[in-house]
Every structure is written in C-alpha cells, then in structure tokens.
C-alpha cells in the first residue's frame, strides 16, 4: 500500500488527494442526483426541483450528473476495487455487527483498510450504479426506443427507482457514520489524514501494515 503512509507530523495518511477528489466528485454529483431524483419521485417533493432552478432544468441536468457519477464510480473501482474484495475475516466481522452498532469497537475483529461494511457500501453503489446507468440511459432517450422494444422502458421505470432506493439506504448510513457517528472520519476525506489512535481503533490490520512497512523502509 504505497499510497498510505505515516506522515512526518505523526499522523496517518488515509486518503491521498486523488482519492479525496474522486470521493467528492461522486458525493456531490450523487447529492444532485438524489435531490432532483426525489423531486421526480414524489409530488410532495417536487418543490426541490423548483428550488434547484426548475424541473425542466433538473430533467436536463440529472442525466449529465449521472454521467459524472458514473465516471467517479468507475474511477473509484480502479482505485479501490482490489482492496474491496471479500476477505477471510469478513464473516467474523459481520457476526460481531451488534458490537459495532453498540459502539463496542474493542470487541470487533481487526479491520483492514476497508472494513466489510465499507465494502458493502462500495459494491452496493457499484452495482446499483450500473443498474442506474443502464436504466437511466433508456429513460434519458425514451423517445428513441422503438415500440417493439418497449419492454426496455417498462423494465427501466422500475429498475431505476429500486436501485436508487437501495443507494439511498446506503447513502444515509454512510453520511451518518462519516459525519455524526465516527468522529475523525470526515477529516480523513477532507484533509486526508487520521490520528494513529483512530487508525488503530477502526482499521488495526491496515495500521499495523503501515507501521511494519515504515519500519522496514528505515
């Protein structure tokens, strides 16, 4: 793991600049997609589109935001795909999930750079992103779908909201954990660094590898 390392000031680099950039490219484009998507989802939320400059503009920009989001997700796949693969300890981690929920982190099996919950978030967004892209392209160019292929429209109108709802569930948990629940996590994706204590508490396996790597280089 060349990208992550101990910093001279004693802190640990968790996300380098490229990783932070792509995170926010995905995050901000997703936020726009979410808000405009909710406006189209329910008449009771249609006002969101009005606030964002009108529903006609929202309809024009929503697909383009989707293109940006897709690029960001694919870029994330390139950066993190390998580290997100299922590992041996994942099952034990999931079995201890009640401890995680109750903030008894000392009872948790040690986690690598990404814990299994983060892997679920990643792959959930990856596969839902693909479903959203494919159905979204059909909805984007609905009028060009020939009548005898209209089943594509019928599949898309249901796949798009179902996949979106799944991502909303992941998104809510992600935002809650990244801002309110897991103190220090938000800084890691803004300035990129965390304290050694944070790294040890949440990603011990990853931290130990960094320390080992640093001492080996000395």
């Amino acid at each position, binding site marked *: 793991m060349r990208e992550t390392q101990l910093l001279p000031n004693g802190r640990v680099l968790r996300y380098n600049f490229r990783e932070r950039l792509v995170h926010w490219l995905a995050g901000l484009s997703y936020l726009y997609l979410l808000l405009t998507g909710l406006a189209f989802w329910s008449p009771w939320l249609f006002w969101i589109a009005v606030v964002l400059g009108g529903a*006609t503009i929202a309809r024009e920009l929503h697909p383009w935001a989707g293109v940006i989001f897709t690029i960001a997700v694919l870029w994330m796949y390139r950066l993190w795909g390998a580290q997100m693969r299922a590992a041996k300890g994942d099952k034990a981690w999931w079995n201890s999930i009640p401890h995680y929920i*109750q903030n008894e982190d000392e009872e948790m099996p040690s986690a690598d750079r990404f814990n299994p919950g983060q892997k679920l978030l990643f792959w959930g967004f990856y596969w839902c992103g693909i479903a959203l892209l494919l159905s979204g392209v059909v*909805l984007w160019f609905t009028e060009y779908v020939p009548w005898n292929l209209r089943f594509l429209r019928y599949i898309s109108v249901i796949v798009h909201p179902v996949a979106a709802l799944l991502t909303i569930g992941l998104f809510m948990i992600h935002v*809650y954990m990244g801002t309110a629940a897991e103190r220090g996590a938000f800084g890691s994706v803004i300035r990129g660094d965390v*304290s050694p*204590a*944070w790294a040890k508490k949440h990603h011990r396996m990853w931290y130990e590898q960094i320390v080992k790597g640093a001492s080996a280089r000395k």
Partner: protein
Amino acid sequence: MSQATLEIRRISGHAGSVPGAGVKREFEVCKLIDTTTCIGCKACEVACLEWNGLSFTETTFQNSYQTMPDAAWNYWNLIKFNEHETDDHGLMLLMRKDQCMHCEEPGCLVACPADGAIVQYANGIVDFQQEHCIGCGYCVSGCPFNIPKFSPQARKVFKCTLCVDRVSQGLEPACIKSCPTGCLHFGTKDDMKDLAEQRAKQLRDVSGFKDAGVYDPQGVGGTHVMYVLHDAKNPQAYGGLPANPTIPWTVKLWKAPLKWLGNFAILGGIVGLFVHYLRYGPKIVDEGDSSSRGGGKS
C-alpha cells in the same frame, strides 16, 4: 391547452386534492370512429394540422397510402392503412384513424411526475399542458397506445388534445368537422356507445361481419375515443391496435406500492439513525492514550 372553462378531474404529479373537482356535473364526451365507413381521404389529418396550427411536414412513402409510419409530435392524427386477408371478405384494406384514445385511466398521467403537466378534465379529455411539461418522457412509457411524442426542438411532449379548445366552446373536434363520409361522430359517451352498438349490430346482421364490434377497452377503464371494427376480435390487424391495453404493470408497481414502501423506508431510516445517535452516540477515539491498543471508550 385551455383550462379556463373546463372542470378538472385529475392532475399529474400533484400533491393534495384537485381544486374544484366534482362541483359541477359534466357530460363525458367521446369520439366515435367507424372504421367500416372510412375511405382514407385524410381530410381529418389536414383538419387537425389546420386547426392546431401545425405545419405540414415531409411524408414517408412505405408502399402504402399511409402518410408516415407513425404519428409525430407535430402530426397527432394519422390514418393507418393495413391490407388484411380474410376468409369471408377476401382482401380488405383496413383504415383506422390513429390518435390519442383519451383513456379513462390515463397511463401518461399516472406516470407523469410534473405537477399539472397532464390534466384530465371532468368531460374525459386528457390534455398535456406544455408550460408545465418538463420533457422527461415518462408519459411515453406509461401510454399503452404509443401516442405521446417528444419534440426535440421544444423538448416537450405533444399529442392530440381532442380539440379541447373547440370542445370547451361547444364545437366538435376539427377532425369530426372535416369527415366527408360521416364515419366520425362526436357526442356524449353514452350516446356514442349506443350509436356504436347499433352500427356493430347492423354490420353483424346485415353486412355479414359476424365479429363486428365496438372497441372501448376496459383495461384502461374505457376510452373517450371508440372504434367500430369489422372484426373486434382482431384489433391488432388495424395497425397494431392493442387487444387488451393496460397501463404497464411496472408503472403501476412503481407509482403505488413501491412509492409507499420507499417513502416508509427512507423515513424509517432517518428516524432509526437519529435514535441510534441518541442511544449510543458517536464513536470517539481517545487521543490521549494513542499508544494503547484498542482505542478509547465512548
């Protein structure tokens, strides 16, 4: 297009009640198209363009009399010509005036997310309000008749209005006015049903069309445009008129159970996360003791 003098029954993408619905009694109107007396003159096509101020566009020749393969955003009314081989009557040239059917249960309106972009008047006419249309094209997916057409220039969707502007002033639609054979009729839904059944009976009893009947599909709650067909058992022969049109089931699933399930899940999720924070609070790292293993207590 003009809402001024008509009472509205249903509004697309609308939160809350429909203002003024049900205060006044209105006749339900209906257009009746007798395909057995249509001669394919296309006067109705021209009258539609004339009244609605649409310019004549290029036609497409496909070895038939048909003006173009499909109706377009600026061509709302198209006679479909189909050669049809039958045992009893030999080769028939079927001519069916194709346009919006003005469904009692309009799939376009159900699918539309834009507040007020599609309205259904109490008289049964389903009308697009382009000033509220956002051009998303969901109506195209909701329609079982392949009617709404997207205009790449206007970036809005258009279709037959049943000449709502004429009807609201007590006039019949332009196509009806222009028909030289009297195969087009306009009146109340009840009157048109009677007339249609009479004509179908005549075709069965006198003209030897034993399967003649009325097309008023109940899968969409009936339509405010009805056909008399020589062979009501085979509407597909008339340029792909669907035998049993319904709103696509995925559209219905999306607009009713999924919507409530999704709203419930989102609200439940927000409440759940909030309660979690109240009960367990944040995961705080004890920075003062960074050398010890296992992190801090919260």
